[in-house]
């Protein structure tokens, strides 16, 4: 039980990651797969933030003089998440544009029915 309490944030992040992976592996509609990618990205970003958190932490901004530096959370994961979000957005935008073109060619987004190329 203490494991659950101590790691509830990690469990939530990995829960999202596993849900995203399940959608990518099991669903056949391309839009659903893209949503799965997006959920996966969110899970990874939350994981990064959770790793950098410290109990009772504040944002790492010295907005006024004399602010306590000890209680600040780790700034590095936040910077990484900024990058990861932008990369996620980039992949998502490209995936959606490909989905538009795929629908125009095949008239369907069901990946099982799209078998122009075989092994």
């Amino acid at each position, binding site marked *: 039980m203490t494991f659950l309490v101590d790691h509830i944030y990690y469990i939530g992040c990995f829960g999202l*990651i596993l849900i*995203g*992976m399940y959608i*990518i592996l099991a669903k056949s509609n*391309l839009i659903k*797969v893209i949503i799965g*990618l997006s959920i*996966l*990205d969110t899970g*990874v970003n939350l*994981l*990064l933030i959770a*790793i950098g958190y410290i109990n009772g932490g504040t944002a790492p901004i010295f907005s006024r003089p004399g602010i306590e530096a000890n209680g600040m959370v780790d700034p*590095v*994961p936040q910077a*990484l998440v900024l*990058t*990861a979000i932008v*990369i996620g957005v*980039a*992949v998502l935008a*490209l*995936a959606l544009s*490909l*989905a538009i*073109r*795929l629908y125009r*060619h*095949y008239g369907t987004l069901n*990946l099982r029915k*799209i078998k*122009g*190329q075989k*092994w």
Partner: protein
Amino acid sequence: MVNPVLLIAVPLGLAFSIPLFGFISRRIEKYIPVAGMLFNLVLSIILVPKVLQSPIVISIGGFRPPFCINLVAGTVGVFLSVVIAAMGFLVSIYSLSYIKEGATEKYHMLFLLLLTGATGVVLTGDIFNLFVFYEILCISSYALVAYPGSREGIEAGVKYLIQGALGSSLVLIAIALIYGQFGTLNMADIARNISSIHSMNIFLPFVLLIGGLGIEAAIFPLNAWLPDAHSSAPSSISAILSGIAIKIGVYAIARMVFTVFGISDTFLFLVTLGLITLLVGELSAFKQQNIKRMLAYSSIGQIGLIVFALGIATPGGVAGGLFQILSHALSKGLLFLAVGYMIYRTGSMEISSLAGMGKRMPFTSLAFTVGAFSLVGLPPFIGFSSKFMVIKAAMAKGSAIFVVLAALVLFAAIIEGAYFFRVVQIIYFKKSDNALKREEAPPTAIIPIAILVTLIIVIGIYPNFLIGLLNSAGSEFLNRVQYIRGVLG
């Protein structure tokens, strides 16, 4: 003052400024990648003698290493950046007249950025920075595979994107776990502290990293995207994807295994994985009727050989693997470039439709033959020297299992020979129904093809001037202690 950061910054700046050149004249745009890659080629060749003495470590922003991103231009990095720049330069010349349709301006920008991303991956010394450049490489490849906008292109692009994005997410999870345990992202700093952590704790990040990077490297169970993507892309892009992009994945895996984690238990696993990839790739290539799919499966096989060579993990083996990277980049690049105009002339990718090409496009057919023979490993071409080096390193390992494995590699080379000879035979000796008129490829294609043929033959005959460089690169790649000391002082 020659600084390796220019290898990344200058092409990036040029790629950003292509639209500005486009405002001046639409005709300048396509020469920018040529200029950028020529710059990189010259600069990396200038860097070679310097890094042979000692690796150049550059910190970005002027802070001390673990606290900033640093570039490590060692022999391996500079050698690979020479390969990238050389292939990029030749293929960008080829693209000048090959790419006519679609948003050509965007094609040239994406092309330049793809190669910049590849250069960034081989030079960086920071694990998250590696991920960012790796993403530049991947995302521009997804877009370029889908660039023709045909049914197959879009379908291949979608498959590639989904698998690639899954792989990148795995890499990012691994980076998060590594940061959580070590509190640093600098590869040398992680490598220094990794022995202080119980090996069970780094097992998951290790597996996720290898799995994620393995998708881009197309190692056996993860290679489903490759045949579609490499055969549907424009031939110039196939040459870059086969010649450069998948090798970057292999390099990244090797960097993780050799430098960051330094786990010697995995070497035999890598050798086996490489061998399976080699056999699966060659056997699948043997069945293909489509010439570009055949070349794509053959790339999977060759990647297997490279992984095999790196997995031997002796300086000789790693040097052989790097030599094989060069040899495969040149040969497969040549094959794709030659096939590109053959397909353009016949309008079909079926192997049987290449009949009579020997008379119709004599020079291109000759170049194809040289590339095929080199890939199979016949003397006096470069493929012979590189395969010989790999086999020699496997034999020098001494144990009986490596002798068996080396025999299997030779067996794969025989399969390879069988299907390439079949194509060469069709090109030269099969009667064609069409009237045979000479239609040679345009000069922008002939020049890079001729340069590649020359390089393949010259390096094949005189491999010795490269051997010193390769051996030094091989021992540098395996030397973790020196890497850590070089970066952190």
